[in-house]
């Protein structure tokens, strides 16, 4: 019997060439399937890279984390409920963020920044999100979008003009989405017509974060629709430019303190010098920036979930039913442990993507995974936390329900979850 089987296998081996790979019997040969997966190529830590656990930070990062935690607890926490109810950000908080240097974390000192690491941004965003995800978003957008756009693509002149402003007191706002183009961003209709040495911008943008208070806008407009997305160009437009109107802010489910408004451009005249980078390259900049933005949003969702979790577990240890604390019931313990594990996994995904980006290594897949996963974990965590808190979790007197409402945007903005999954799949397709 064995001999016959052996003969059959050897026969198959001769036919190897004609058999599709996935049907090849495993005993025939340990085929090394060709793969471009980076795993197979050893990722060696070279000089300068340390093989330390992801939760180990540099001294400055640890001090920053402590400082932001304190700031969030003392200066932000008292206003959270009020800001959410009135859907209005407290001026003192935004001012405080600027004063503490939290809006110019990675910028060089010559522009008013502090020259800290990219990872520091992630830590700051996470700590702020533990208290209020809306405040965290302000910090995140300024650092990963506004500042990055200027430093990566701005001319010396533009950097000298705008960077000191955005590190001191000016909020930036990124205008890409329109009523008709969300995930399909490059089908945007806002038009920029060239007239000599200036452009006329016409169109309307929607879902623009921070628009209510921003001082400078990045407007993605198409200079030549016949080129399709290769006509998209990024313009820097000051708030008080004639023709720029910020509409009434949306009445949102969550992150209400952070304004989201439509912005219309009615024959807005901008000089050629206000183009960021090069004409027709806007689509590239958008993609590039959204990548680091993804890690930032992942950090926001992570902090949100952690903050919600941190406020729920002590309650479960205090609340006594049937003679013992509800934490002591094994059913509860298992649920809590599961959520804690998911949180830890989300944290490591985010930190790893951040460290990869900081080291200048490709991190698009990891960033997409981090953003997708943390948004899911945030939804799971906040939902479970409300259940564990019981009736108390359901009332607006307690902060838990706010986290539940805030988390939903994580699956939607800066690339919906479906887009993230498609991106991941694209990379996987290349790897195999």
């Amino acid at each position, binding site marked *: 019997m064995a001999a016959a089987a052996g003969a059959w296998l050897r026969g198959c081996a001769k036919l190897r060439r004609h058999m599709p790979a996935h049907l090849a019997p495993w005993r025939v040969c340990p085929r090394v399937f060709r793969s471009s997966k980076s795993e197979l190529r050893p990722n060696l830590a070279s000089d300068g890279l340390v093989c330390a656990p992801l939760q180990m930070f540099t001294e400055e990062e640890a*001090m920053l984390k402590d*400082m932001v935690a304190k*700031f969030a607890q003392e200066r932000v926490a008292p206003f959270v409920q009020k800001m959410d109810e009135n859907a209005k950000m407290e001026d003192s908080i935004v001012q405080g963020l600027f*004063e503490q*240097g*939290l809006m110019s974390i990675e910028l060089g*000192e010559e522009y008013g920044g502090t020259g*800290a690491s990219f990872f*520091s941004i992630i830590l700051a965003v996470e700590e702020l999100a533990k208290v209020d995800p809306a405040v965290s978003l302000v910090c995140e957008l300024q650092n990963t979008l506004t500042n990055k756009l200027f430093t990566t693509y701005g001319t010396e002149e533009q950097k000298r003009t705008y960077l000191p402003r955005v590190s001191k007191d000016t909020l930036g706002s990124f205008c890409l989405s329109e009523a008709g183009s969300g995930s399909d961003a490059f089908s945007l209709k806002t038009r920029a017509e060239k007239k000599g040495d200036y452009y006329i911008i016409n169109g309307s943008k929607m879902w623009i974060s921070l628009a209510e208070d921003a001082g400078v806008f990045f407007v993605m407009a198409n200079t030549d629709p016949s080129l399709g997305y290769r006509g998209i160009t990024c313009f820097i437009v000051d708030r008080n430019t004639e023709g720029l109107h910020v509409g009434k802010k949306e009445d949102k489910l969550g992150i209400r303190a952070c304004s989201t408004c439509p912005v219309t451009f009615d024959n807005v005249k901008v000089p050629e010098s206000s183009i960021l980078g090069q004409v027709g390259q806007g689509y590239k900049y958008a993609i590039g920036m959204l990548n680091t933005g993804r890690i930032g949003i992942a950090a926001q969702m992570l902090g949100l979930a952690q903050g919600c979790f941190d406020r729920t577990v002590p309650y479960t240890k205090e609340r006594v039913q049937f003679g013992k604390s509800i934490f002591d019931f094994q059913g509860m313990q298992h649920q809590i442990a599961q959520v804690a594990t998911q949180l830890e996994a989300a944290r490591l995904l985010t930190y790893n993507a951040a460290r990869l980006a900081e080291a200048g290594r490709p991190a698009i897949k990891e960033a997409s995974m981090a953003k997708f996963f943390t948004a899911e974990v945030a939804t799971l965590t906040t939902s479970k936390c409300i259940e564990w808190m019981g009736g108390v979790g359901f009332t607006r007197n307690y902060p838990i329900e706010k986290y539940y409402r805030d988390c939903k945007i994580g699956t939607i903005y800066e690339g919906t979850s479906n887009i993230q999954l498609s991106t991941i799949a694209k990379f996987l397709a290349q790897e195999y």
Partner: protein
Amino acid sequence: MAALRVLVGVKRVIDFAVKVRVAPGGGGVQTQGVKHALNPFCEIALEEAVRLKEAGLAKEVIAASLGTKSSQETLRTALAVGADRAVLAEVGEGVATGPLEVATALAALVGRLQPQLVLLGKQAIDDDCNQTGQLLAAMLDWPQSRGMTGYIPPDGCEAPGLEGGPVHTGRLPVLTGPQGTFASRVELEDGAVRVQREVDGGLETLRLRLPAVLTADLRLNEPRYATLPNIMKAKKKPMEVIPAADLGVSGGSPRLKVLQVQEPPARAGGEKVENVETLVEKLRQSGRI
């Protein structure tokens, strides 16, 4: 007025927000893996020193601490808040240190660094001793000392004799030991410091000749957050590490030994009664009356 050099003592303690647990064995509390921070009263003292520097009244702020290697983190935080340099009197892990050891080390540092003002927190939140400032002043024989040295009498009063003992003067009663402890307001004058203290009877204002030791109370000021630019600058500021033995701190048998630490008894539920008679009955039953 000459700009002063100010020495600020800081201590690394368990963060106030942490839920403290008794270590197994009952000999202390769990410190392994627990979040530590700068003692809040030391933060207040440091804030006062930095404010003096910003007002141009102090030229240098030196932060000093007695502790293990981990205290370097605390000193870095002090540098980030605004100190110019830091000194660590290092002891090995597990060496017991109390207020006497700290005061000894600080006294030696005072000898080396020659500050005109020493600012400390009134007490540490882990042992609540409230002794270091007083011990240090006594060792240095500076105001905030038990003797009359350095006490400047108010105008129109006789200078008290060095033999000690209370001397009654026209306006302010002269105390046997002017102390700059529990300071809730500090104002520098030429060669002296005016201190408002929170005492049991209310507020007391003293004028002490420099050099002096002051300990900060809660309402002295509101400490600042270390801004991110200062955190980044802190790395470049000098930090000196000196073995504590070089400063006269002997690691030998400590004078204080913690015998036992236990948690307070768990809170039992209360009980509601119908009327006064039942109340008295219950109280009698439980042996309270």
